[in-house]
């Protein structure tokens, strides 16, 4: 299919929502209810304006949903063949390359060779990657119910639920965190991820107590992984578990424990850029090793904005303006909050000014800093310092910049990157 798929049209999204409702009503034996009729009536409009491709997608989604909502119609499971295995691999590759329709079609064609749990898991992961977590959650829940022993199914279900229904995801995560020993480590790590991500939510009662509970659950999971438990869990699960543990301790104010957990994770994988960034930020301005961590994160081409931002600040304070400028440029190519990017633009302007870049280039960077974050008063003041120096024809005006301290930048990084690192 030529177009990027599935579509993101509002009508298609409405149809998807309605189909999920109808299948849920069908599962409850409410096909003939007034509610089901109302959903069908509401779907007439959106269905009428879908293009043929989207109509077909919606129709096949409905058909696939019968594997979840309908009576068990699965034919006898065929023994796996080399050809079927190849097709499944092809389906996974299609999903990974964004060819979601093809992936779903391949899965459908070979479904008689796939166990019902794996079938729902595969469908769920396709819809999750396609940006429809609400659909993914339905399939993944089914997969995890059919095979409760598979931690990966449950963990992926929690991911989908977190994206589609954060409140339910937190409730589900809390159940896991309350009894971590009942769950595979991968599920505990994912539950902790969901919980840490929502800790800032005002609805979380007693966040400190909950934070302690999360750390206990994570410590249990990491300990089991150390002992070889959950071999089916992805390799990244361990690193993510210790990252979350460190972040929890960081949040609870225990810097040493946080650093120790990051270190433990790095002993397993010295090039884990998230752990490198986490430890680097935690110890920035306190321990010289922090710079080495951040440099290593940059050397492995981390896609996080933070190593670049902290090194830009570091090089700026060392008056190494060219390296500061390069870090700013690299950081600005990463995804990050407007306030982080505002800092990078401000520091880029300062570095450019010191390096003798044309005034208009410097000015544009300052303007961009203010535009990105109107509360960045320092950028405004530094822009003024730059203009005043220009007016005085001062050849080396600059060194009077107002700078943020290492402690200020560290604090900002700890607060801002906490959740993006956990993602």
């Amino acid at each position: 299919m030529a177009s990027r798929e599935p579509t993101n049209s509002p009508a298609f999204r409405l149809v998807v929502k309605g189909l999920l409702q109808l299948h849920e009503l069908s599962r409850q034996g409410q096909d003939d209810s007034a509610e089901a009729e109302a959903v069908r009536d509401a779907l007439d409009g959106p269905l009428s304006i879908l293009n043929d491709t989207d109509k077909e997608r919606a129709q096949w989604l409905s058909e696939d949903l019968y594997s979840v909502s309908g009576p068990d119609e699965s034919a006898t499971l065929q023994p796996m063949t080399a050809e079927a295995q190849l097709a499944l691999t092809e389906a996974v590759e299609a999903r990974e390359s964004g060819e979601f329709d093809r992936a779903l079609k391949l899965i459908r064609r070979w479904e008689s060779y796939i166990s019902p749990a794996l079938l729902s898991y595969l469908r769920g992961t396709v819809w999750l990657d396609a940006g429809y977590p609400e659909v993914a959650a339905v399939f993944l829940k089914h997969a995890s119910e059919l095979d409760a022993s598979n931690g990966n199914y449950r963990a992926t279900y929690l991911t989908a639920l977190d994206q589609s229904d954060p409140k339910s995801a937190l409730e589900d995560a809390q159940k896991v965190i309350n009894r971590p020993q009942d769950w595979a480590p991968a599920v505990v790590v994912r539950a902790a991820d969901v919980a840490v991500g929502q800790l800032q939510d005002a609805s979380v009662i007693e966040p400190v107590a909950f934070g302690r509970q999360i750390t206990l659950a994570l410590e249990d999971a990491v300990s089991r992984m150390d002992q070889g438990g959950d071999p089916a869990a992805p390799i990244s699960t361990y690193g993510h578990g210790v990252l979350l543990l460190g972040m929890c301790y960081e949040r609870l104010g225990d810097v040493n424990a946080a650093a120790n957990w990051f270190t433990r994770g790095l002993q397993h994988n010295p090039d884990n850029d998230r752990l490198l960034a986490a430890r680097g930020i935690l110890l920035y301005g306190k321990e010289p090793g922090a710079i080495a961590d951040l440099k290593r994160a940059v050397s492995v081409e981390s896609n996080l904005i933070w190593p670049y931002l902290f090194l830009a600040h570091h090089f700026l304070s060392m008056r190494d303006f060219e390296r500061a400028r390069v870090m700013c440029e690299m950081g600005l190519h990463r995804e990050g909050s407007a306030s982080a990017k505002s800092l990078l633009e401000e520091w880029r302007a300062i570095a450019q000014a010191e390096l003798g870049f044309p005034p208009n280039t410097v000015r544009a960077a300052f303007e961009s800093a203010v535009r990105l974050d109107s509360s960045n008063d320092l950028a405004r003041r530094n822009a003024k310092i730059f203009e005043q120096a220009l007016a005085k024809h001062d050849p080396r005006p600059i060194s009077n910049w107002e700078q943020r301290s290492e402690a200020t930048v560290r604090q900002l990084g700890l607060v801002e990157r906490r959740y993006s690192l956990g993602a």
Partner: protein
Amino acid sequence: MDNSTPRDPVTPPKVYRIMKRDTSDNLPVVGSGSSSELGARPHVDIAIDAGGNVVLDGTGMSVAPNWRMIHFTRIPKRLRHIVPGALGSDKHACFSMGAGPFERGLVTVNLELLPDETPPPVNHGVIAPVGVVPLEQYQSDLAGTRALWKVDEA
């Protein structure tokens, strides 16, 4: 074909509609409270003026030239082997009436088919009153077709 005047009622157009099936006689259930009954929902399917008369503005009870062209969310689930994903109630059935082409034409003396004015293939139309009549008369005319419908899921 001249679309401006109704056709001869001798060969009324063949139209399909998915409706609740009365198990006692295999005919559609008459009513105007649901989109799955033989009737038109006032102000939803058919426009009504302040005097309670139908408005001849192209609205009316929905029909299709073939049951496969009806949204799959309404096609009974038992027909999934023909239309994948069909999600309608199995208590409903695909009914048809008439034999002629899906073109503007009289269905009965008081009712006519108005196909949507969209580029071909046209997949939807309405059964509308031929003239301005009270809503009750229109509903009665629709109900009067009940015996003409037959389950047709081929």
